[in-house]
């Protein structure tokens, strides 16, 4: 069944036999979201979509789902994909609505302003193109004509994207091209310029270069390769109804697409919590001892677990924080990390190590708190179905993949689940795992240090304040889209908006980085102020919870005040918009000495008279980059 991981969504548990009845009985968005977390086929996803539409039409509460409206433009039939997308989006906490074009209306939609998208607010457009809808003209053996044809196809796609962007303002999710199964030249096909496979391979590389602030790639070519092109392409369905792929893959296609929508909303997961016995190694350390557990090369089971460790390290290298939750004595559990020569994972890779006899849900809660991450950021990997069930039941926000019996498939299943979907890769991502590590060191330091003042002094913090710039942009956008807790207004801006702030002289912008004796925290705060002559309005103020309690916000205010004064302002106005997540900063402005001037349940405004402002003594030295 290894080839069916994708088709069956094997990381999700099987739906209960009374699934249909549960869907018909659901009356809230939260219930539908829970029902979407099973391995559902297209008909079941359709049921969820129907029920969601019923609840929406009849005024039921869809909380806590986030509403997202997208456009769907395709050169093939998408009628069956739309309901799969809507049902699947629930899995990611999204209440999705889709504005859909008729069959084969790509150019007509893109190049006309009088299209179905006019007057609609779309957060994205899924551009679902197929090789049969592109002006691909095979010229086997003719390199010049082949290169020209790729340029023609590329310009066509680029101008479609450009027009859609201009006419709707939506970001584009562009799917790349799954090549056909039939290769007339056999193995030589790919080497010969101008064959259809050659053209598609080269066009796909060109499309990859489009990844930028306004275009994301949905890797259909990779998905089709994973499930097998001869399974993916169904010529009968294409001939009958212009369906672009075998419809049994609609659920995984929809999951792939929704991962990108969710990542855009900052919903990708950030931490992998792993069990030890029979997950990270074969056997039980408490029973088998360090020489008895299976890890390393030379034994098939040991190699399977080694492969999982390698995958965990690869995730760590791209910014995923690793943690351990194991039912073991702490000292025993640590032995393989310190003493087993074949372990790839070492203690310094693990940000939080929880080995004890408490239940796993409590341990996962503790890990989340230690890392200041939400439970929705967590993935929990455990070979034991009972542990998985307990965690799923206690902590529905945590993703808990089903695992096959064979550990050789653990890594594949984990990655196939797509929990850590990336839409960008910043310098901070490269270093994040170690930031969290430093942070855990810090928590331990704090536990030992009774005197907060001397602790902060001992950190030797150095804060750098810089206006927005090109280099910082990906991380600025990331912070703006992900920060929920320390975020005064929770305004979400995309890469284009941030670029506009960067260039608009009416705005004062700050990206703030923090270094200390234990490590570099990277960019931890973003501030945007609108400059009116005498009054500066703080549009956005957010901060990473990693640096809470470090007086960073006081240092940031000092920086804002000195700049505001320099430009002749006399007053600073801040806004607090309460959300379900940001109670943490309810007293932010009051703590900083602002006076409340307006307050209702949606909105508070606070003022600071700059003439009255007294800069505090801080354990942070401020640096200004030019």
């Amino acid at each position, binding site marked *: 069944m290894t080839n069916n991981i994708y088709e069956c969504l094997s990381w999700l548990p099987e739906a209960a*036999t009374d699934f*249909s*009845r549960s869907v*018909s009985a659901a009356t809230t968005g939260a219930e539908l979201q829970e029902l979407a977390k099973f391995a559902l*086929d*297209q*008909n*079941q996803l*359709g*049921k969820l979509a*129907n029920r969601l539409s019923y609840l929406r039409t009849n005024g039921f509460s869809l909380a806590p789902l986030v509403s997202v409206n997208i456009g769907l433009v395709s050169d093939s*039939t998408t*009628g*069956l994909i739309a309901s799969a997308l809507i049902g699947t989006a629930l899995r990611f906490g999204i209440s999705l609505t889709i504005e859909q074009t008729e069959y084969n209306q790509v150019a007509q939609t893109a190049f006309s302003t009088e299209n179905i998208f006019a007057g609609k607010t779309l957060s994205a457009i899924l551009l679902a193109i197929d090789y049969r809808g592109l002006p691909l003209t095979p010229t086997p053996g003719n390199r010049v004509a082949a290169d020209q044809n790729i340029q023609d196809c590329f310009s066509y796609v680029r101008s479609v994207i450009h027009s859609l962007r201009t006419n709707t303002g939506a970001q584009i999710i562009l799917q790349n091209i799954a090549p056909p199964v039939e290769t007339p030249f056999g193995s030589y096909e790919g080497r010969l310029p101008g064959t259809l496979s050659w053209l598609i391979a080269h066009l796909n590389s060109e499309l990859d270069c489009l990844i930028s602030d306004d275009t994301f790639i949905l890797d259909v070519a990779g998905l089709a390769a994973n499930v097998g092109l001869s399974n993916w392409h169904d010529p*009968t*369905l294409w*001939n*009958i*109804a212009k*369906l672009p792929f075998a*419809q*049994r893959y609609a659920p995984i296609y929809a999951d792939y697409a929704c991962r990108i929508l969710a990542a855009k909303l900052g919903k990708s997961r950030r931490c992998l919590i792993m069990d030890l016995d029979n997950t990270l190694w074969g056997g039980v350390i408490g029973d088998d001892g360090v020489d008895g557990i299976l890890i390393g090369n030379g034994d098939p089971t040991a190699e399977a677990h080694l492969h999982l460790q390698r995958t965990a390290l690869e995730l760590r290298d791209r910014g995923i924080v690793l943690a351990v939750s194991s039912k073991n004595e702490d000292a025993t559990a640590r032995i393989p990390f310190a003493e087993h020569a074949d372990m790839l994972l070492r203690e310094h890779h693990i940000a939080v190590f929880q080995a004890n006899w408490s239940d796993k849900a409590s341990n996962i809660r503790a890990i989340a708190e230690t890392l200041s991450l939400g439970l929705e950021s967590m993935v929990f990997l455990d070979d034991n179905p009972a542990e998985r069930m307990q965690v799923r039941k206690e902590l529905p926000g945590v993703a808990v993949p089903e695992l096959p019996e064979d550990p050789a498939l653990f890594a594949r299943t984990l990655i196939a689940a797509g929990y850590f979907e990336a839409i960008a890769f910043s310098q901070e991502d490269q270093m994040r795992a170690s930031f969290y590590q430093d942070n855990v060191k810090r928590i331990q330091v704090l536990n030992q240090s009774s005197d907060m003042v001397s602790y902060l002094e001992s950190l030797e913090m150095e804060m750098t304040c810089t206006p927005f710039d090109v280099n910082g942009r990906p991380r600025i956008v990331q912070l703006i889209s992900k920060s929920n807790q320390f975020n005064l207004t929770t305004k979400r801006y995309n890469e284009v908006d941030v670029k506009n702030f960067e260039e608009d002289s009416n705005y004062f912008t700050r990206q703030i980085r923090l270094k200390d004796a234990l490590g570099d925290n990277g960019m931890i705060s973003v501030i945007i102020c609108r400059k009116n002559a005498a009054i500066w309005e703080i549009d956005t103020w957010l901060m990473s919870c990693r640096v809470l309690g470090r007086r960073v916000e006081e240092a940031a205010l000092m920086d804002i005040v000195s700049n505001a004064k320099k430009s002749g302002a006399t007053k600073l106005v801040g806004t607090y918009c309460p959300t379900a997540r940001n109670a943490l900063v309810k007293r932010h402005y009051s703590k900083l000495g602002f006076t409340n001037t307006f307050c209702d349940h949606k909105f508070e405004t606070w003022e600071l008279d700059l003439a009255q402002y007294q800069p505090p003594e801080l354990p942070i030295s401020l640096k200004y980059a030019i």
Partner: protein
Amino acid sequence: MKLPNQTNDQTAPSTAQFIADGLTPIFRDVFDDDELVISEVTTARDVEGWDSLAHIRIMVSIEKVFGVRFTAAEISKLKDVGTLAELVLNKRAHA
């Protein structure tokens, strides 16, 4: 979804019985209607929402559940549920 018993060692079910036990759950699933009743003489005109896309969903679901495959000609020339049931039974008998 549970796969029905696929062993061939029993006598083939009658068309009516196959419609009741094999096809009805699939139709109910596709049309999201747990009370839908179909018989040998049911046609697309008798069922609300049975358009060309719903037709494909029915055929794709049957292919998946019974492990059979239809040609385009077979899919387009079906008259009613009775001929559909006979087609599936016939394919399973020769599988």
